[in-house]
Every structure is written in C-alpha cells, then in structure tokens.
C-alpha cells in the first residue's frame, strides 16, 4: 500500500511529532488506536478508584495504617499508567502514519506486575488477619 507524501499539505496538527510524520492512515485504525488509549485510561482510573476505595475503607473500618501505603501505591500506579496511555497513543499513531511496525504493548507486563503485587500484598494481609 503506497503512502504518497503531500507537498501541498497545510501545517500539521499538534503534536507535531505525531502529525508531522508520514501520511494520514485509514481512519478506522486511528479510531481503534484512540479507543485503545481510552481503554488504558479506564484501566488507570480503575487503579485509582481501587486505591481511593481502599484508603476510605481503611479509615472507616479502622484497619491497620500500612494499608494506606498500599492504597497510595495503587493511586500512583494509576497516574503513571494514564501518562503511559498518552505516550502509547502517540507511538502507535506515529507507526500508523509511517507504516512502521506497531510498538509492543510494553505497559502490559508492568501493569500485570503491579496488579499482582498489590493483590499478593492484600492476600497476605487477609491471610494474616484470618490466622493471627
């Protein structure tokens, strides 16, 4: 599939490092890329919601204070993931415009590690509460 360059193109949209390269891809791919970024954004929001919920529950139920640290870690992970979503959208859109190979979903293993760590710590807390 040829990607003709446009010598008479008007000034590209912002951010220039995305729209300044290549040519407009099939809009369905751009829309799919947008939805993927939004799905990452919702995942980030879910992490934040879990963190806020955990810290609220810890306060209301008078649970041990270290749980607040776990909640803060979940919130920070959500904030990092939200930034990652925007960067991932930029990288994928650049690849779509230049015809390069799409970048690997590098956020996925990190997200899995963070979620697994939070889950294991909470499981450890639950077991500790149950047996000691």
């Amino acid at each position, binding site marked *: 599939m040829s990607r*003709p360059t*446009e010598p008479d*193109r*008007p*000034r*590209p*949209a*912002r*951010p220039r490092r*995305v*729209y300044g390269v290549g*040519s*407009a891809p*099939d*809009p*369905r791919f*751009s*829309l*799919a890329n*947008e*939805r993927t*970024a*939004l*799905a990452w*954004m*919702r995942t*980030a*929001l*879910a992490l*934040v*919601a879990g*963190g*806020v*919920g955990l*810290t*609220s529950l*810890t*306060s*209301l139920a008078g649970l041990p*204070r*270290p749980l*607040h*640290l776990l*909640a*803060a870690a*979940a*919130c*920070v992970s*959500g*904030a990092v*993931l*939200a*930034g990652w*979503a*925007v960067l991932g*959208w*930029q990288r994928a859109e650049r690849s779509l415009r230049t015809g390069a190979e799409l970048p690997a979903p590098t956020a996925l293993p990190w997200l899995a590690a963070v979620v697994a760590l939070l889950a294991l710590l909470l499981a450890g807390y639950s077991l500790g509460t149950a047996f000691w």
Partner: protein
Amino acid sequence: MTPAHRPGATAADALGRRDPGLQAERTALSWQRTALGGCLVALVALASAARGGLPVVIAVAAATCLLSAAAALVEVPRRVRPVRAGQHPDSPGSQPQTGPATRAARSVHVRLLAGLAVTVACAVSGVTIAVSSAVP
C-alpha cells in the same frame, strides 16, 4: 482520486456512506465509558473526603466530575451526530482546509491529555487521602 484513497479519508467514506464497523460510534461510547469512570472515581473520593473534611480533595473531585461530564458532552455528540445525518464529522468535504490532519485527529490528543489530567487529579486526591490518613 476516490474518497477511499484520499489522505484524510474517513471510516465512513472508506466503506461507502456508512462504516459497518461503526468505528465512530464505538469511539464515542469509549469516551462515554471513560468519562463515567472519571465521575465514578471522583465520587468515591468525594464520599471518602466528606467524612474527614479535606476541602482540597472535595474541590478536585468536583472539578473532575465537571471535566468528565464536559468530555462526554463534547465528544459523544461530535462523533455521533454527523454519522446519523449520513456525513462523517471528519469528512474531507466538510473540512476541506484541514487536509490530512483532520479535525478529529487534531483534537484527540487534547482530549487524551484531559483524560490524563482527570486520572492524575483523582490519583493525587487519593494519595492525599491515604497519606493524611496514614500520618496521624
């Protein structure tokens, strides 16, 4: 040059008048879900902060709700309305001066940054609640 091969061609005119994959509608719904998620997190933060005070968190949560609602109100009709009328919002015919950089492409990044701002604002209020609860 047929519309399908033109730079900046839309999902609608790539496949005839209407995109059977409903890409624009799905994207609009995706924005709607994300906005609802933002409101949900803000409400959780609000419910938590209402007990202990923390006016900063209450203000951030209220602003997040407003921003999420604004994102949904702006983005969803913009995606769906022209499709229903048989014309895509990003149609080259409707925006001839923008060329390949369609209006949608121009504004996606801004809206993603708004989503980022919402998420970070929620995260900051969550961390504030957590830290203020952990440190007596």
